[in-house]
């Protein structure tokens, strides 16, 4: 390659602009045809010989001591293979504690795959029934008689720390899992000298992922090999391998995790669930394959929930619009355990880390407290902490603007970190390499045509129709280094690896440690390898999700697959090209550096003239190596790994706009249109980025308006089914316009940052600000999501 690497911008000629480059092209994903024909293979489709099906007996109580479990009747039921209690399963599986050492003081209690002494939330498994069919297992599960002694239930996070509240895990001393205080600058002085201080309390309801394919696992322990093969819909195969090996007393080499098609993840499938570990343990115990597919009701009570934060926020502002200080007091309830191994304290930590991060304001105080309660566990779900930090920040900024009579756009123009101020650091200590808040804001205003919208809004207002415009800028954490988990002692890899191999016909086989959940990781990997090596993309085949056959790596979470896995693929493709060209050079008696591979042909680098096709290089190397000069040993396989090192995270940024109509009589909110500008650096595949943004936005709009896991005071989930838990439907969702600013990271050659969580980060904040703009004539402000019709009407004083 003679082109000098230049990552200064998308227009500069760089190594990514190789002839026939696929970088920046909307290439359709190779696996889509199969999926449109119903020919995917999801874990729920997997069937193995001698496979048993497990159904779990789950606690109907939120908190109860298990007095006794009577299993005789269940064992005698048709088709039953085994009925297993937690105490019995403990013989083959050790418990775990979901803590990380870098979250100082985080505590949790030991958790077993099946509860032994007591159940701590409604839905926790207390026994397992394995039978020939799932229906037989469910029939028999109803015959398991569990005698419970109900215990006092802790549900309200506001009172979880009160002296009179029972302690869920007495050995821990109290219900406080973790707390963090962060102070930057001099917030007290800044608030004291501010012209105005505005306070508001924000609420973020519990919601969950509702992956359309529920969690599923097939565990196959082969006692002959002493080997456990696990088919699991997971985002992190190597993490699962490590965890299962550790708790089932197997070497990691004797655990293989296979991840085929996955029916939606969004963070739901990156955790270690007790019932999934129990399934693997049951397979080891029973020496046969065992399958668990959660039904929808189980999904609602056991898939991790997210959010459930109450944030008291304060902002100080001067009359000229200068923001002088932010302060937050975040309280979150995480259920009875900190989830393993990523912990349930990360979301609160990210709320502290991201609040106010768009702005230059140096004065900041944040307190976060994470408390236990007898509800389902919460943990990391798409855009962890982002919607909370963004809604609090952008809600407060709008309130400040309103107080001083400034336009919401103007106050942002005045306070966002300028595009020429990088690199810099936020008041929470986040390091920013280069962001583009100013460019993104101006681009959004162009796309929205704000003046026309304001005119439409005014015209509608005259007709008694209440429309509102909201904007919300955000930062997004992507491409995490070891700073997320590795430094805290979790064996969750932050590096990823890619192996590329040329076969005897000159096609390229790629094995990557990142995984595909529908976001397009395999497509992007193929694009990058095809470009780096120089073949048509049809000649690249990508395999992911197999711990036996891919390099070791972290998988797909925290918007890392393209930025980290993609860079490893890029480097591996380049090395393989060099390896192949050195052999071609020997065959052609040419200098390898004067040759290139383009469109599947070895060519003269200078002129592009064809010298020989790749399949001919492969034929000679594989079948006639005797004709190669002495000392030439073809190595048509290359592996490269990558992890970012200069920055702990590659932050990205963006801004969203929302136009809504609020019916003041019914409280219904209609989404008229939504816009997003985001900056994920180098755009590898524009269509895939746009669709990640759109899908992410709708996953932010759901909790903004509809999605809410409602519990009563006894810790009973009231709406744990799809009819009562509302997710966005096609008719309710608006068209979504997506635009981009591109600021590549200089840390990698590709320059790609993540894009998967940008949409979710800012959607709720934009809608909340739009709703409050619509309701401004009534003088009311909504600060809790979901903004249901009831909440709108309550705010208006109409119910």
């Amino acid at each position, binding site marked *: 390659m003679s082109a000098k690497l230049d990552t200064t911008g998308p227009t500069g000629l760089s190594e990514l602009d190789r002839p026939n480059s696929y970088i920046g092209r909307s290439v359709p994903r190779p696996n889509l045809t199969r999926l449109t024909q119903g020919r995917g293979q999801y874990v729920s489709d997997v069937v193995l010989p001698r496979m048993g099906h497990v159904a779990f007996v789950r606690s109907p109580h939120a908190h109860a001591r298990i007095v006794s479990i009577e299993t005789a009747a269940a064992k005698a039921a048709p088709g039953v293979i085994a009925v297993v209690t937690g105490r019995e399963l403990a013989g083959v599986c050790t418990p775990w504690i979901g803590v990380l050492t870098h979250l100082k003081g985080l505590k949790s209690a030991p958790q077993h795959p099946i509860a032994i002494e007591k159940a701590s939330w409604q839905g926790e498994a207390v026994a397992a029934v394995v039978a020939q069919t799932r229906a037989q297992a469910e029939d028999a599960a109803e015959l398991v008689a569990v005698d419970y002694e109900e215990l006092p239930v802790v549900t309200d996070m506001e009172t979880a720390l009160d002296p009179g509240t029972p302690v869920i895990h007495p050995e821990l001393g109290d219900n406080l899992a973790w707390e963090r205080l962060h102070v930057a600058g001099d917030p007290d002085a800044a608030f004291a000298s501010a012209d105005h201080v505005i306070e508001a309390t924000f609420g973020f309801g519990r919601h969950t992922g509702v992956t359309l394919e529920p969690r599923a696992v097939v565990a196959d322990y082969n006692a002959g090999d002493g080997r456990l093969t696990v088919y699991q819909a997971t985002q992190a195969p190597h993490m699962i391998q490590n965890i299962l090996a550790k708790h089932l007393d197997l070497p990691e080499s004797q655990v293989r995790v296979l991840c085929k098609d996955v029916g939606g993840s969004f963070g739901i499938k990156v955790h270690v669930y007790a019932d999934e570990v129990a399934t693997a343990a049951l397979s080891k115990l029973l020496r046969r394959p065992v399958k668990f597919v959660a039904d929808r009701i189980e999904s609602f009570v056991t898939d991790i929930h997210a959010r459930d934060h109450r944030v008291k926020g304060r902002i100080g502002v001067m009359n000229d619009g200068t923001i002088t200080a932010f302060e937050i007091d975040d309280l979150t309830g995480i259920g009875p355990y900190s989830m393993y191994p990523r912990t349930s304290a990360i979301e609160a930590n990210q709320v502290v880390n991201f609040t106010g991060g768009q702005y230059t304001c140096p004065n900041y105080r944040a307190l976060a407290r994470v408390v236990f309660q007898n509800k389902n566990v919460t943990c990391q779900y798409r855009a962890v902490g982002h919607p909370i930090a963004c809604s609090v920040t952008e809600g407060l900024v709008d309130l400040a603007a309103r107080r001083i009579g400034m336009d919401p756009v103007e106050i942002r123009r005045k306070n966002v970190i300028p595009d020429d101020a990088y690199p810099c650091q936020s008041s929470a200590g986040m390091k920013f390499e280069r962001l583009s808040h100013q460019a993104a804001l101006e681009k959004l205003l162009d796309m929205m045509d704000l003046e026309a919208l304001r005119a439409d809004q005014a015209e509608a207002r005259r007709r008694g129709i209440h429309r509102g415009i909201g904007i919300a800028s955000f930062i997004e954490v992507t491409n995490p280094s070891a700073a997320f988990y590795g430094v805290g002692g979790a064996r969750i890899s932050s590096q990823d690896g890619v192996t590329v191999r040329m076969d005897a016909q000159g096609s390229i086989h790629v094995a990557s440690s990142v995984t595909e959940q529908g976001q397009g990781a395999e497509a992007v990997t193929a694009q990058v390898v095809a470009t780096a090596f120089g073949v048509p993309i049809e000649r690249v085949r990508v395999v992911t999700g197999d711990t036996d056959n891919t390099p070791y790596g972290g998988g797909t979470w925290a918007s890392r697959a393209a930025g980290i896995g993609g860079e490893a693929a890029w480097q591996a493709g380049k090395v393989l090209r060099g390896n192949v060209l050195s052999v071609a050079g020997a065959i052609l008696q040419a200098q390898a550096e004067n040759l290139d591979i383009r469109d599947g042909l070895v060519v003269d680098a200078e002129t592009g003239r064809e010298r020989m096709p790749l399949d001919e290089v492969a034929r000679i190397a594989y079948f006639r190596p005797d004709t190669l000069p002495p000392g030439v040993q073809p190595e048509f396989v290359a592996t490269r790994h990558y992890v970012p090192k200069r920055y702990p995270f590659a932050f990205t940024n963006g801004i969203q706009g929302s136009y809504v109509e609020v019916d003041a009589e019914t409280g219904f909110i209609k989404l008229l249109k939504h816009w997003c500008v985001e900056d994920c650096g180098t755009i590898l595949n524009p269509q895939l980025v746009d669709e990640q943004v759109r899908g992410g936005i709708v996953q932010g709009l759901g909790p903004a308006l509809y999605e809410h896991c409602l519990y009563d005071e006894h810790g009973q989930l009231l709406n744990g089914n799809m009819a009562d838990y509302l*997710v966005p439907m*096609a008719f309710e969702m608006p068209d979504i316009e997506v635009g981009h600013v591109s600021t590549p990271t200089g840390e990698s050659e590709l320059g790609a940052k993540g894009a998967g969580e940008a949409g979710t980060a800012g959607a709720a904040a934009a809608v909340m600000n739009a709703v409050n703009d619509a309701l401004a004539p009534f003088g009311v402000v909504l600060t809790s999501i979901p903004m249901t019709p009831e909440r709108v009407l309550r705010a208006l004083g109409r119910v």
Partner: protein
Amino acid sequence: MTPRPLSFMVNGETVRLLVDPRRHLGDVLREDLGLTGTHLGCEHGVCGACTIRLDGEIVRSCLTLAVQCEGARVETIEGLSDSGEVADLQEAFRNRNALQCGYCTPGMIVTAQDLLLRHPEPTREEIREHLSGNYCRCTGYHAIVDAVAATAAGRTAKGSAAA
């Protein structure tokens, strides 16, 4: 619970089975016939992932007992794919990236085809309305609406060219 004999037509093939009366059609298609393209998302008739065609009408296979299908004609995504009936919809979904994880897609395509057979030129609003019984958690729907609209436009153009 005695298994009952069931004879029906699935994707053009006559199938004879003994099934428990309590089993729903989705389970029988998936477990007994290996037609795993029909996906189960909620098993209470809300999400639409298990949508199939029964005697020409789209139904939730999770809300249909298999024994109700005696003598009926059932078409699943596998049959509609192999006959080529929805090939243009599938191509449009692929080109527009109107699917991510693909779990809702078979049901979505069966439902979209139902709309296009009834209303060859639907508006975006009508497309959104008709697809509202099919949940998608990945795409946000915009791309799906685009793909269905593009298919409708393609069929209309083809129809008028042929006329």
